[in-house]
């Protein structure tokens, strides 16, 4: 565990991430379609992704009759980066995004990252022998999944703001229960 001070010293406070509010998801899969569209080669729309059959990088899992969206959390100490044999999987020091694409080394499909990721957020590419994961949409202002979510189940925002919102909800519940 790194001390909190060090966290403050880095660029980590004020960091924006796609936060998951699972209770709000209604399983419409718009995030999945938008993700596939954003990664299409040509037409980067939902239709473009469907036409090109681009694989999505976010999943919506059926759990006890409910739907839960799941994507890479871009960890501060990513197990997938530690496990990667070739160095393809790396965490960008500036953006903090974790990806096996666009670096100097190539992914060889050894699947160590898949074995290492505790969240199951890295998957096998359906057509190529490489690992496939959320790249955080580095070229977009807001990641495609969060921009598309009609239910606010995926929220693009500051990590600590999300915590503040949750804390306020808890505080309210405590007050009402008191």
């Amino acid at each position, binding site marked *: 565990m790194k001390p909190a001070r060090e966290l403050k010293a880095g660029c980590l406070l004020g960091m924006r991430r796609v936060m998951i509010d699972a209770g709000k998801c209604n399983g419409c*899969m718009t995030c999945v379609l938008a993700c596939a569209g954003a990664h299409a080669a040509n037409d980067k729309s939902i239709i473009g992704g469907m036409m090109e059959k681009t694989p999505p990088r976010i999943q919506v*899992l*059926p759990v006890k009759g*409910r739907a839960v969206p799941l994507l890479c959390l871009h960890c501060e100490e990513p197990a997938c980066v530690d496990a990667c044999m070739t160095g393809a999987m790396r965490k960008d020091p500036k953006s903090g995004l974790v990806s096996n694409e666009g670096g100097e080394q190539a992914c060889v499909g050894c699947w160590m990252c898949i074995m290492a990721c505790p969240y199951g957020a890295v998957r096998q590419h359906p057509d190529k022998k490489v690992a496939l994961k959320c790249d955080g949409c580095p070229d977009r202002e807001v990641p495609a999944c969060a921009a598309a979510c*009609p*239910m606010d189940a995926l929220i693009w925002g500051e990590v600590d703001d999300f915590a503040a919102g949750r804390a306020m909800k808890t505080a309210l519940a405590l007050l009402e229960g008191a």
Partner: protein
Amino acid sequence: MSICRTCHAVDRCPSAHRSTNEMYEYCRSQGIPTIFDRYQSQQPQCGFGMQGICCQLCSHGPCRITHRAERGICGATADTIAARNLLRLAVHGAAAYSHHLEEAIDTLKATALGSTPFRIGDSQKLQEVAMGFGINVAGQSERELALQLADRLLADMHKASREPLTSLSLLAPPSRREVWAKLGVIPGGILSEIRDALTKSMTSINTDPVDLLLTAVRLALATGYLGLMGTITVQDIVLGSPALTESWADLGVIDPEKVNIVAHGHVPFVGTAVIQASRDPEILSWAKEAGAKGINVYGSMCTGQELMQRSAASAGGFAGQLANWIAQEYIIATGAVDLVMMDMNCSIPALSTIAEHFPTRLVSVDKVVRLPGVSEHVDYAPEQVAAQARELIRMAIEAYRRRQNGYRGLGSQGNHHGNGRPAPYLPPYKAKVLAGFGLESISRAFGGSLEPLLAAIADGTIRGVVAVVGCTNNRNGHDTTGLAIMQELIKNNVLVISAGCMSSAAEIESLMDPAAEARCGAGLSRFCREAGIPPVLNFGSCVDIGRIVLAVTRLAALLNVDPSRLPVAVSAPEYLEQKAVADGIFAVAFGLLTHLGPVPPVAGSSLVTRVLTEDIEGLLGGKVLLEQEPKAAAAAMIEHIEAKREALGL
């Protein structure tokens, strides 16, 4: 959730029936995906669609209602979208029922002219109904009456929407007609009502959710009085009214040594003609030549119920009911079926994909039924059905020969099945059924009157009656919710009558065997034992919901009260398709508490949900109950029954 007793893994079993669970496992072991696998691969399903607040009518759409977008692009609210979607579902149901009725009327005409293999099966009903329609019956031949009645019914179907439906004024209780007239929902001809409902539900024509719901009520009344009651009346006249008869259900009734034909769908004419032809010694000799022990005609879905209900009349020799909607693929997967005749409604596209792995030959027997991968059609024509039946049996015998020679379907070349004659896979279960219930046969069972039943309800031996009807659904486990509700009701001395896929569910789990009295509360148990009837009465197919309505109408008339005051309720615990939507709205309009599961796609509109579950009771006497937990749903219906008893002073 499952009531299967095979093992302790109840939570993992997709079906309430042992046979279905075993067939599912068998298909998995063969690498053949079936309905339960496809259900899983569709999860999770879109919440907008489930809640009925996705509109795909115009090219601005799809529009979905969220907290950020409370209106569609045209300005439609969740209430408009949900009500309009519901009406569109009901229209589909009304159309399919009308198609069925028109085929029945054509058959009545052709039968009157002597050009079908059928003979008028219930001439008393013909006389009564003809009289009701104002036909002068004195001195008229059966042929004349049948022709005139057919014309009157056709004219009723084709009336303008401003001309009140004759069938309704003939069959509906006067107190109901008053309620409907006050609301302005007395329908005209069903075809005009379908046209009006489709017109109103186009984009930007009628966007008032309340008027759209009233349109659905009006359409459902036309569906009920023509599509349901008109159809069963004509079918009774042509094929005979149901009479009590013993039969069997479940896959264990299949005899692999025979030429096996399955009548699958909803319309019983081809199935009946094939059963009748299969008894012809010449045709039987074809089967014997092919090495078969004989010819068996089984039922699946509602066609099976129709044949079972009339196996003491026109369908003598019926070999038993195999399964309902969810389990239709497994009939083919037994590998012991030679021909499936698909008539109108409920042939899923997966039938043709599973048939690639098995020797079964698929043939559509109605001009509206077409499936990709099915190239053989013997489209029902009343005047040709005798010859068509012989042709269908010839096709089945050909398939039988191929089956005996080891043919395993198109996908069998060099596959895992290996060479030689493969053994069919037949779960060894079958259940005895006492079938053939209807107003007439119940009266006959009680010595010519309904008095003993009324007395038992009046003195509380039987607390009331619930019709558990309609489809079967995967969402809560195949037949699991329906069976749980039926068992809870009979345990609490509520008599159950059933129709449609729910009848199959009850048959297979022996609830239609008189021995099931042992599973009832003391009062109902005694009543069933004395009358020799099971606690769940088979009223037949889903169109026989009309038969249930007529029975409730008679009950109300005998007690001289409006149907909404009776200690009765309806449950469609696993509703699936659009005909059931029209049926459900009809039941509410008839004044009955109507339990529905799963929740229909209206929950995204608080207005539509409130109207259907609360406000509508003040207007029509009935309302929708959406309790999804089976025990709690049964308890709510029992509570309703007790309240109605108290109000009647019982």
